[in-house]
């Protein structure tokens, strides 16, 4: 782990409130990028990500006891997700749950789920495994996923592949399930 981050963590876990506040600046600078990228997976909205992250950092300042004995960046990310981010994520949509046709349990699993196998991999590892898996898909499935990742709508993807929107949705659904299987295989092989 980065020495600067190590020092910031030491300051954060101190008993003195002012020292914790001083340590927050280097801690935010060292972790902001990875934390916001991680949150973005679950929200897909920059403004909401920043709002939640602001509360997450303040929560860390208030109750930093979970950050004792952190030795790696991965462990830090996992701990912060488990004890700080997930609670905040689950709070985001709780207020609209009254009007939803989705059980509280399903809502919780959708917006702040338990950690899966891939969710603890680093961004670069994920990128590599995902690209490897995408290359194994059929060319049409590959194209559908790539176009979607370029930000295109289902209609545009359908026009590009000269098919219907319904067929594109089916194609993407199958491709995503295949990706899951392929990525699991790669993960186990490694």
């Amino acid at each position, binding site marked *: 782990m980065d020495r600067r981050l190590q020092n910031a963590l030491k300051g954060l876990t101190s008993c003195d409130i002012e020292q914790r506040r001083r340590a*927050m600046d280097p801690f935010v*600078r060292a972790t902001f990028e990875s934390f916001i990228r*991680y949150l973005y997976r679950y929200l*897909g909205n920059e403004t909401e990500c920043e709002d939640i992250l602001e509360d997450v950092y303040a929560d860390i*300042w208030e109750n930093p006891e979970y950050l004792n004995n952190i030795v790696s960046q991965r462990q830090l990310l996992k701990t912060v997700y488990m004890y700080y981010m997930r609670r905040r994520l689950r709070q985001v949509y709780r207020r609209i749950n009254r009007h939803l046709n*989705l059980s509280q349990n399903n809502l919780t699993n959708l917006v702040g789920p338990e950690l899966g196998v891939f*969710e603890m991999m680093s961004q670069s590892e994920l990128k590599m495994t995902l690209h490897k898996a995408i290359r194994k898909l059929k060319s049409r499935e590959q194209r559908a996923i790539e176009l979607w*990742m370029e930000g295109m709508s*289902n209609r545009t993807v359908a026009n590009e592949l000269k098919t219907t929107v319904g067929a594109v949705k089916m194609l993407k659904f199958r491709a995503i399930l295949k990706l899951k299987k392929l990525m699991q295989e790669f993960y186990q092989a490694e």
Partner: protein
Amino acid sequence: MSDTNREIQELLVDYAGALRDGYIPSFLKSLTREEGKLISSSGQFWDATEIVRILNGVGFADKAVTADVGLFMSRVDANIVSRSKKARASSQRKHSGRFTSQKRNNRGTKSTTKTEKTEKQI
């Protein structure tokens, strides 16, 4: 997303689109009762959501990284200051409450209950 009772593949793709474009609340609100039941009973849907999140993270998370971390830091600092003020205010309130009750005890006055008062009168 206005179709009623979508199939599971449509629901997943709509969820993926909502996650990519940042309108999860609208997606959640668009679910009908049947769709809600379909989601909760479908293992495939839950299998796929993990990959959808990863695609979202790998493909689009870079745009969430703001250039000015300093500005964000000032927001965090303001949040911390307001929390510490709140904590201080509540501890002062607690302290002053304890202090007034102690003061009353020091004066030697004893709080009398309603029944005690009536007993005295009798």
